[in-house]
C-alpha cells in the first residue's frame, strides 16, 4: 500500500503530491481522533439498533423503563449513526483528503512550528466539542429532553455546540483549498468544498427554523423533509463521493477519463440533492407542486447517480489490485449501493408506489441503504486507506478487515432486502382498508425477527472494526514506546 509501488502518477488521479509525509503529519492527530471516536459511536449506534429491533419483536423487552422505550432509543441510534459516526468520519476523511489533494500541510509553512501546533490544538478542541455535543445530545434524548423533530432531536444547546464545532473544523478545509499548491482543482475537491460549505447552512437553517426559534408549524413539514434529504445528499454523500474520486483512480492503478461527465454529475447532484427529501411528503399536507417536485426529483436523481457511477466504475481497473485492497472494495461497493439507492428512490417516489409504501419499512430500507451503504461504505474505504498513511505503517489486521467487509455487506444486504420486502407486504395490506391494523402488525413479525439478525451481524461487523482500529492504535503506541519516541 506504500506510495512507490505505483507505476506512475497520473495528474488526473491527483492525491499524491510531493511532501505527503509532512502533510500527513500535520493532520495526523485530529484525523485519528475523529476516526477513532466515529468508530466508537458506530459501535454504540449498532448496539442500540439491535435493542431497538428486538423491541419490535418483543415490545416488553427492557419494558416499563421510560428511558429505554423504543421512542427514545430509536432516535438515539439514528442520531448517533448520523452525527456520531457518519458526519464525524466524513470530517476526518474530508480533512485528510483535502490536505493531500491540495498538496499543503495544515498550517501551511508553519505546520511544524508554533502556528501549526496552535491550529492543531484548536481543531482537536473542536473535535472534543463535537463529541461532547453528541454525547450530551444523546443523553438528553435518553433523559427525556428530545425536541421531537426527526433527525434533529438534540436540544438547542447541543445542536449549537455541534454547529460551532463544525465551523471550527470545516473552515480550515475550505482555506486549504484556497491556498493549495497544486494548480487545477480535482473533482474530489469540488465535492469537499461543497460539502463543507453546506453542512453549516443546512444544519443551521433547519435548527433555526425547527428547534431554536420554531417557525409556525404549518410551514415545518417541507423544511423537515428538506433537511433530511439535504443532510444525506449534500453533506454526507459529497464527502463519500470525494473519497471515491480521490482514491479510486490511484487504488485501481488507473485515471479518471471523461472529466465533462464528472462536472455535469457534480452540478446535477447539487441541483437535485436539496429536493431529494421531498418524497417524504408525497400526498402530505403541503402544496401540490411540492409533491410533484418530490416525484420529479426522486426520478431525476438517477441521472447524476448514473453519470457519477459511469464515470468512476467505467475506469479501467486492474482486477488484481481490487481483490487485494479493502479500501477499493469498500469504495466500489459504496458506488453500487448508491445506484441501488437511486433506483429504490425513483421507484418509491412514483405516486402509486409511494401511496402504498411511504410509511412502511420500505422507506426505512432506503434510508438505511443511504446511511449504511452509499455513505458509510466509501467512508470505510477512506478510513482503511488513510490510517496506514497517517501512522506510517501497515496497521490493519487483514483478517479483521476482511471479516468486517464481508459481514458489513451481508448484514446490510440482508437488512435492506428484508425491509424492502416487509415494507412492500405491509404497504399492500395497509392500502386495503378491510385488513385490520393489528393484522398487519402480525404480518411484519417474521420480517422484524430477520431484521434483528441482520442488525446483529452489523453489530459484529462494527465490533470487528472497533477491534481492528484499537489494535492498530495500540500497536502504534507500543511501537513508539519501544523505539523511545
Amino acid at each position, binding site marked *: 500500500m506504500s506510495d512507490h509501488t505505483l507505476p506512475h502518477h497520473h495528474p488526473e488521479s491527483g492525491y499524491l503530491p510531493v511532501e505527503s509525509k509532512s502533510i500527513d503529519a500535520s493532520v495526523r492527530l485530529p484525523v485519528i481522533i475523529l476516526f477513532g471516536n466515529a468508530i466508537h459511536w458506530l459501535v454504540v449506534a449498532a448496539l442500540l439498533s439491535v435493542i431497538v429491533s428486538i423491541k*419490535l419483536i418483543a*415490545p*416488553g423487552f427492557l*419494558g*416499563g423503563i421510560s428511558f429505554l*422505550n*423504543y*421512542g*427514545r432509543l*430509536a432516535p438515539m441510534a439514528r442520531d448517533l449513526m448520523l452525527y456520531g459516526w457518519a458526519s464525524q468520519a466524513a470530517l476526518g476523511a474530508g480533512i485528510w483528503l483535502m490536505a493531500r489533494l491540495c498538496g499543503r500541510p495544515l498550517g501551511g509553512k508553519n505546520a511544524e512550528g508554533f502556528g501549526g501546533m496552535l491550529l492543531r490544538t484548536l481543531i482537536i478542541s473542536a473535535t472534543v466539542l463535537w463529541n461532547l455535543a453528541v454525547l450530551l445530545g444523546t443523553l438528553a434524548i435518553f433523559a*427525556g429532553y*428530545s425536541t*421531537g423533530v*426527526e433527525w434533529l*432531536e438534540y436540544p438547542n444547546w447541543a445542536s449549537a455546540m455541534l454547529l460551532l464545532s463544525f465551523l471550527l473544523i470545516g473552515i480550515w478545509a475550505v482555506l486549504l*483549498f484556497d491556498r493549495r499548491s497544486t*494548480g487545477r*482543482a480535482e473533482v474530489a475537491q*469540488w465535492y469537499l*468544498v*461543497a460539502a463543507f*460549505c*453546506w453542512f453549516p447552512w443546512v444544519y443551521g437553517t433547519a435548527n433555526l*427554523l*425547527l428547534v431554536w426559534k420554531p417557525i*409556525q*408549524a*404549518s*410551514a*415545518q*413539514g417541507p*423544511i*423537515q*423533509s*428538506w433537511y433530511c434529504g439535504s443532510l444525506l445528499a*449534500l453533506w454526507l454523500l459529497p464527502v463519500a463521493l470525494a473519497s471515491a474520486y480521490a482514491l479510486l483512480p490511484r487504488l485501481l492503478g488507473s485515471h479518471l477519463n471523461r472529466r465533462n461527465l464528472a*462536472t455535469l454529475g457534480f*452540478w446535477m447532484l*447539487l*441541483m437535485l440533492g436539496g*429536493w431529494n427529501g*421531498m418524497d*417524504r411528503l408525497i*400526498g*402530505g*399536507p*403541503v*402544496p401540490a407542486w411540492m409533491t410533484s417536485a418530490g416525484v420529479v426529483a426522486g426520478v431525476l436523481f438517477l441521472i447524476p447517480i448514473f453519470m457519477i457511477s459511469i464515470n468512476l466504475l467505467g475506469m479501467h481497473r486492474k482486477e488484481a489490485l481490487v481483490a487485494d485492497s479493502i479500501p477499493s472494495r469498500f469504495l466500489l461497493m459504496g458506488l453500487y449501493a448508491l445506484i441501488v439507492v437511486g433506483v429504490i428512490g425513483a421507484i418509491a417516489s412514483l*405516486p402509486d408506489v409511494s*401511496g*402504498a409504501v411511504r*410509511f412502511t419499512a420500505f*422507506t*426505512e430500507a432506503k434510508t438505511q441503504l443511504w446511511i449504511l451503504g452509499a455513505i458509510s461504505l466509501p467512508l470505510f474505504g477512506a478510513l482503511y486507506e488513510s490510517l496506514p498513511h497517517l501512522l506510517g505503517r501497515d496497521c490493519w489486521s487483514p483478517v479483521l478487515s476482511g471479516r468486517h467487509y464481508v459481514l458489513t455487506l451481508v448484514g446490510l444486504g440482508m437488512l435492506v432486502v428484508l425491509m424492502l420486502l416487509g415494507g412492500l407486504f405491509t404497504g399492500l395490506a*395497509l392500502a*386495503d*382498508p378491510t385488513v385490520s*391494523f393489528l393484522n398487519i*402488525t*402480525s404480518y411484519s413479525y417474521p420480517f422484524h425477527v430477520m431484521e434483528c439478525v441482520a442488525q446483529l451481524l452489523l453489530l459484529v461487523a462494527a465490533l470487528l472494526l472497533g477491534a481492528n482500529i484499537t489494535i492498530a492504535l495500540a500497536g502504534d503506541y507500543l511501537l513508539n514506546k519501544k523505539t523511545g519516541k
Partner: protein
Amino acid sequence: MHRLPTLLSGIFLVFLTSWLGLVAYPALQLGRLTPVADTDNGGSLPPTYGGQAIAGQRIYATEGCISCHSQQVRQTSITTSDIDRGWGVRPSVARDYLRDSTAFLGSRRLGQDLSNVGVRRPDAKWHFIHLYHPAAVCEGSLMPCFSDLFLVRKIQGQRSDDALNLTGADAPKEGYEVIPTADAKNLVAYLLSLRHDYPLPEAPVKKNGAAK
C-alpha cells in the same frame, strides 16, 4: 471552477434553488397561514389547544411517539386508504398544524395515524389503560407500556376517582391503586385534542358522514 470564489458562487447559486423552494417559500407562505372563522360554532379553526394539551405535546415529543405514529391523512386520486381506514374524514392540510409547536408529521406507521385519535377514541379512561398496558386493550399491539407515566400507590381512605380500572395480571395488589401522573394526564389531553374533523376552506368535509 479552479478558484475558490468561482466555485463558491456556483455552489451558492445551485444550493439557493432548493433553499428558496423548500425553506424560504414555506416560511413566507405556509408560515403566515391564519386561522379561519368557524361559521357553525363560532370561534376559529383550527381550534386552540388547552393548557394541558400544550403541555402534553412536550410529552409526545420527548417520548418519541413520532417514531411510530404519523399525524397526516393523505388523499390523492390514488391513495384513499387513509380515509377508508377511518383515520380521518378529509386530507390533512398545512393549516391543520397552525396551533402546534412542532408538526409531528412522522415518517413511519408502526402504529396507527393519530391525526384524529381524539375522534376515534374520545374516552380518556381508554387512553390511560392503553398507555399503561397497550396489549390489555389491543391484543398483539407493538406499542411499549408507558407504565412509568403512572403511580402505584396505597389507597388512602377512598379509592381515587382517577384510578385505572385494571383487570387480570395488570391489576395492582389488594389495597393499592394505579393513578396517572400529571404527564400522563397532559399527554391524554393532547391525544384527545387531536381532532381534525372540521372543514377548512381548502379541505371541505362532505356532509353525511365520511367523505369517501
